[in-house]
Structure formats: C-alpha cells, structure tokens
C-alpha cells in the first residue's frame, strides 16, 4: 500500500498521483461520468432501434406491448425507486460518518430490492416462455399462440419481443453486475474504508446503481404501457 497510496490526514487513502482528497474525488467522479456516457450511448443504440421499428410498425407495437405484464413492470419500477433511495441513504451515512453497521444495513436493503427486481423479472420471462412469446422461428408458427394473438402483425410483433428481451435483458445484466459490485462494497464497508473524507468507491457505485434505475424509468413506459389505453386496463393476465 505504501507504493500505491500515502496516508492523508485522518489515515484515509490518497493515491500518490493526486494533490489532495478533493482532486482525487473530482477525478473519480469525472472518470465515472465518462464511463456512464459510454453506457448511455450503449443503451441508446437499442432505444434508437426501438424508435425506428416502432415508427415502422406502430400497430404491432401496441398489440405486443399489451402482452406485457403491467402490474409486474410497475412493481419493479417501485422496487427500483426504493433501491435508489436506500442507495442514496447508504452514501449519506458514509458522508456523515455514520459508521459501518448503518452503511451495511442500507446496502443490504438495496441488495434485497435489487434481487427482488430480478426475481420478479424471472417470473415475467417465465410467463413469456410459457406463452411462446420468445423471438425465434416458433414465434411465427401459424398454429402457435403468438400467431393467434397478433394475426398478420406477428412478424412485426416478433421484432418488438426481440427488442423487449434485449433491452430488459441488458438492463437485468447490469442489475446482476450491480449486485456483484454491491457485495464488494459491503465488504469494503465492513473493513471501514468509507469515511466522510473518502467514500469515493461507494459514491461511484451509487452513480452506477442510479444510472441503471434511470434506464428502467424510460423502459417501463416505452415497453409496457403502449397498449394500456386500448382496453382501459393493464396487460396483466
């Protein structure tokens, strides 16, 4: 550690190439935002695909969206908002020197919300598998469930489901990575790494977690709610 960092007042970690903790903090923030800029464009490609195909096949989009489970999607939206709140409070605890037990408690709550999201997502995916709404050759099988539901729009609805699984799948993958990082952060919390002078690691992880929440904020109305007004009720069945 003596080669990597030198102790600043208070015994907190300061990497040797930074003048002081403030500079170290701002550099970490800048690096994290540069990473998130690439993430936004990464997800942006899928959103762009969504815009183009929705513009081409609006009827199929409405029909296919109506097949998604609005109740489960809505609960998951609330679950992610809860997890963002507990994440913000975990960082606040580190900022105010609240000690490692409250830090770990807030992170544990965030972890539980994150896992609850994935469990609900699992049941949603399982429902789609049961109904044969999986993009692939069987989707357009004339005797299949999808053909019966979508009729002449079945090929276009398949594109919707390809995008649905890619977008929510990529989002869920980010959640899984986030849960892995969360366990690492809890270990760092346990070791007492995060103090009011240096809680950079936890704050950068928080930025990632909130970013994943923001992606879902856009996914929920774009994927789940297009067909909602068609019958005046949600697509849950």
């Amino acid at each position, binding site marked *: 550690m003596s080669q990597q960092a030198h102790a600043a007042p208070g015994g907190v970690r300061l990497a040797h190439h930074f003048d002081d903790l403030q500079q*170290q903090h701002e550099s970490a923030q800048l690096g994290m935002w540069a990473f998130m800029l690439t993430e936004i464009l990464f997800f942006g490609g899928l959103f762009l695909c969504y815009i183009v195909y929705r513009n081409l096949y609006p009827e199929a989009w409405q029909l296919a969206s109506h097949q998604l489970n609005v109740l489960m999607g809505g609960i998951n939206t609330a679950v992610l*908002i809860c997890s963002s709140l507990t994440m913000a409070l975990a960082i606040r605890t580190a900022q105010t020197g609240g000690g490692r037990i409250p830090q770990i408690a807030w992170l544990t709550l965030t972890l539980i919300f994150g896992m609850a999201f994935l469990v609900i997502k699992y049941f949603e995916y399982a429902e789609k598998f049961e109904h044969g709404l999986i993009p692939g050759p069987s989707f357009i099988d004339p005797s299949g469930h999808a053909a019966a539901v979508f009729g002449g729009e079945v090929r276009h609805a398949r594109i919707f489901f390809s995008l649905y699984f890619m977008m929510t799948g990529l989002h869920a993958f980010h959640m899984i990575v986030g849960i892995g990082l969360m366990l690492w952060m809890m270990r760092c919390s346990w070791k007492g790494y995060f103090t009011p002078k240096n809680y950079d690691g936890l704050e950068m992880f928080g930025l990632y977690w909130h970013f994943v929440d923001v992606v879902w904020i*856009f996914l929920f109305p774009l994927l789940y709610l297009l067909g909602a007004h068609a019958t005046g009720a949600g697509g849950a069945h």
Partner: protein
Amino acid sequence: MSGDHKPHVVPISHYIGVFVALIVLTGATYWTALLDLGALNTPVAMTIAIVKALLVVLIFMHVKYSNKLIQTMAVASVLWLLIMFAFTGQDYLTRGWLGN
C-alpha cells in the same frame, strides 16, 4: 494544500421528497397511459420519464451539487444521444413524407 474533500450532505427530507415524487410520477405515467390521448400519449409519458430521470440525476446522483465539469459531462451524454437519434431519425422517420 490541505484540500480535504468536504461532502455535500443532502438532508434526508430531500431524499424522501424525491422518493415520493418518483412514486407519484410512476402512478401518473400509468394513469395517463390509460387515457387515449392519441398522438400525445408518448410525449406525455416521455415528459414524465424525463422529469423522473432529472430528479434522480440531480438529487440522488448529486449532479446539482457537483462541479461544472461533471455537469457538462452529464449534459454532453444526453447531447450525444440526441445527435444519434436526430441523424438517424432524419432518414428513417421522414421516409414517406414526400408521398412516396
């Protein structure tokens, strides 16, 4: 150069306020989706989503309290996204406008 990092501590009441606003706006998204607003459904849903995203980015992600460089990065990320959408949209979304 003693430059200790002094955290900007946001009051818990602010976090709770943002949380409540996000839940209420989620309800609003669902409720407005049940109404048939014709071509306005998506703009309304996106407006609510953008307000929600702004609340998360400004308060939860502390961009409101960050330095100008971070704020520029946050704006730039959206700007580049919009360039990608606009340049693709000017082709795909305008096909057929001339009656062909």
